[in-house]
């Protein structure tokens, strides 16, 4: 086996163009796909017209000055604004295809906000204008959802401000103190102090004074009011943020998007090199007519398969390790975690190479082996990258079943776990070991069936 391995390495060394193409192909495909699948969609371009003069941005809310433009900024987190000078220009930008949508803030929005807070339920709520380009339904939905989600955030932030003002007003009503009004600040007695004053009045009245029962009634009412308003404070706080989000991960760990991109890029490179070499180098034995000569007593067929698997795995490991080293310049790749990601790289390479050897055992020449490798590799990678929740239960179970039969998913999971601490490592490694053994058995059976050809 050693001599065959050396022979194959020598053949590869004498095929520099082929080798360079294989490595370049793996890297050129691996990097963009890896980053493409993990990059968030780019921010949509949205034309933005703010009709409010800068000095008119603030409005009074219960005596507090609130800057409305601060809430508009919420929108810019998810969109790429193209600032224009008029509503017409904003709409034109959408028509011209320069922007996917337009957001128009009317000049009286501050007044509308002021009215809404002063006359809730009577005044019209403040209204923003949104225009979409409907030529691409997918993009339209994306812009629509982005703007709506961001407006919901802005509404929530504004309602928080209103709640704070209301809570402050309640506090003044209860405890008394200064309260700002448009006409000036007034001193409010407050229910608690009023209650104390009433108790003083009551105690100053004779026991049989007919006024005493009436004062006692007012004191009782004040106490109920104090208790109720004491309770109202926390209730208002709860209304300001009615739902708290507690995020939990059911599967996976604490991996980052960048880390996942590295794992995906390396997995794709590993797949192409290992599958193509495993398949191609075994098929080459047939194409060179050496296979029959080798297996008639010089080498056992199983040894030949293991040798090709080791060759493919070794080369794929070297290419992927080099790629990982290159990526480490730009991305966080922890060398201290090498004892975790190295086994993932080794077993991933072995799994893919064993798959390649099985492909090579089924084909007669290098061209057929390469074609079959491509035909197999691209869909298994695509299937393994389908996220949960995008398909129905039955379809997703089928996709998971198919993905489990190939090394892409377990290699990606193992590399993600090894590189990024994203989930458990043991199970995918066991999965890869089992797949490697299964593909070698499949290759051996294929050789028995087609070996004499």
């Amino acid at each position: 086996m050693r001599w065959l391995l050396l022979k194959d390495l020598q053949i590869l060394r004498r095929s520099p163009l082929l080798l360079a193409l294989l490595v370049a192909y793996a890297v050129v495909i691996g990097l963009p796909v890896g980053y493409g699948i993990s990059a968030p969609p780019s921010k949509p371009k949205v034309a933005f017209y703010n009709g409010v003069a800068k000095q008119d941005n603030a409005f009074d809310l219960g005596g507090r000055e609130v800057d409305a433009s601060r809430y508009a900024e919420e929108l810019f987190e998810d969109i790429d604004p193209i600032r224009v000078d008029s509503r017409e220009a904003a709409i034109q930008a959408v028509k011209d295809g320069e922007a996917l949508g337009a957001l128009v803030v009317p000049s009286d929005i501050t007044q509308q906000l002021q009215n809404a807070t002063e006359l809730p339920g009577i005044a019209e709520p403040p209204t923003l204008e949104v225009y979409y380009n409907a030529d691409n339904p997918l993009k339209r939905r994306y812009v629509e959802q982005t703007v709506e989600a961001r407006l919901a955030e802005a509404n929530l932030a504004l309602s928080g401000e209103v709640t704070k003002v209301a809570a402050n007003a309640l506090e003044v009503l209860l405890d008394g103190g200064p309260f700002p009004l448009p006409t000036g600040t007034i001193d409010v007695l407050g229910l608690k102090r009023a209650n104390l004053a009433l108790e003083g009045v009551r105690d100053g009245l004779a026991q049989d004074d007919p006024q005493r029962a009436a004062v006692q009634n007012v004191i009782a009412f004040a106490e109920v009011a104090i208790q109720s308003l004491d309770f109202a404070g926390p209730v208002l706080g709860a209304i300001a943020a009615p739902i708290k989000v507690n995020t939990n991960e059911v599967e996976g760990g604490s991996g980052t998007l960048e880390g996942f991109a590295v794992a995906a890029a390396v997995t794709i490179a590993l797949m192409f090199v290992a599958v193509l070499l495993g398949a191609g180098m075994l098929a080459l034995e047939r194409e060179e007519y050496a296979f029959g000569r080798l297996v008639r007593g010089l080498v056992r067929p199983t040894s030949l398969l293991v040798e090709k698997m080791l060759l493919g795995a070794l080369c794929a490991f070297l290419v992927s390790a080099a790629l990982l080293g290159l990526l480490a310049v730009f991305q966080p790749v922890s060398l201290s975690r090498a004892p975790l990601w190295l086994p993932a790289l080794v077993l991933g390479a072995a799994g893919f190479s064993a798959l390649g050897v099985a492909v090579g055992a089924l084909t007669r020449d290098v061209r057929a082996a390469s074609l079959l490798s491509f035909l197999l590799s691209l869909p298994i990678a695509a299937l393994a990258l389908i996220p949960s929740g995008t398909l129905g239960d039955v379809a997703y179970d089928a996709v998971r079943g198919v993905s489990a039969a190939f090394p892409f998913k377990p290699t990606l999971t193992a590399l993600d776990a090894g590189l990024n601490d994203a989930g458990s490592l043991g199970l995918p490694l066991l999965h890869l070991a089992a797949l490697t053994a299964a593909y070698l058995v499949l290759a051996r059976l294929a050789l028995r069936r087609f070996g004499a050809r």
Partner: protein
Amino acid sequence: MRAEAVSKSYGSRAALKAVSFAADRGEVVALIGPNGAGKTTLLSILAGIQEPSSGTVSVGRKEVGWVPQQPAVYRKLSVGENLRLFARLERVADREAVVERMLELTGLAEREGDELGKLSGGNQQRVNIAIGLLAGPPVLLLDEPSSSLDPRQRARLWELISRLAREEQTTVVFSTHDVGEAERYADRVLVLADGELLFEGSARALEEAVGSPQRDFEAAFVAFLRNRGH
């Protein structure tokens, strides 16, 4: 070497039907017959590449040198590297000496360092034969060894094979479509058709069997097959 009632079936199709024959040391035997007669199947069973469905072969794989129809060599390796690799795999004792001898025998000593893919088909075939001879087998099986060679290369090939049989007492069994070669270089011919061994004997005996000794061997061969319904 002796083959006893060797049969081979692929599903319901019988490729060989109870073929028996023997070949002595130093004897050169030609297998001739139309396409699909079973020549390559018989040779591959004798070489140990395929198992027969029934019947026995008296020699083991280690005693047989196998020269397939297409040169079974690595075109990216040099002549010397090919010979050394297969000598290692054959576990040849004095590897370098044997490789040198093969280079001399095939007349390729000066091209030892040349990449095989850059050699002519004839020279590739000579390396193919040399690899089959590396372990010094008592039996050499060749599947259409001259099919890709020009006349000059053919002459050199048969000179080499005849020398092996004569000087090394190697038993040589070869298949060919060129019945003239069979007549010229074989001591005995075996005629196979549809997996059946129809004739075993010298070229002259085949001509006599057809009943027109004045005709040439190729015409006698065609007539023989026609008479037997092939």
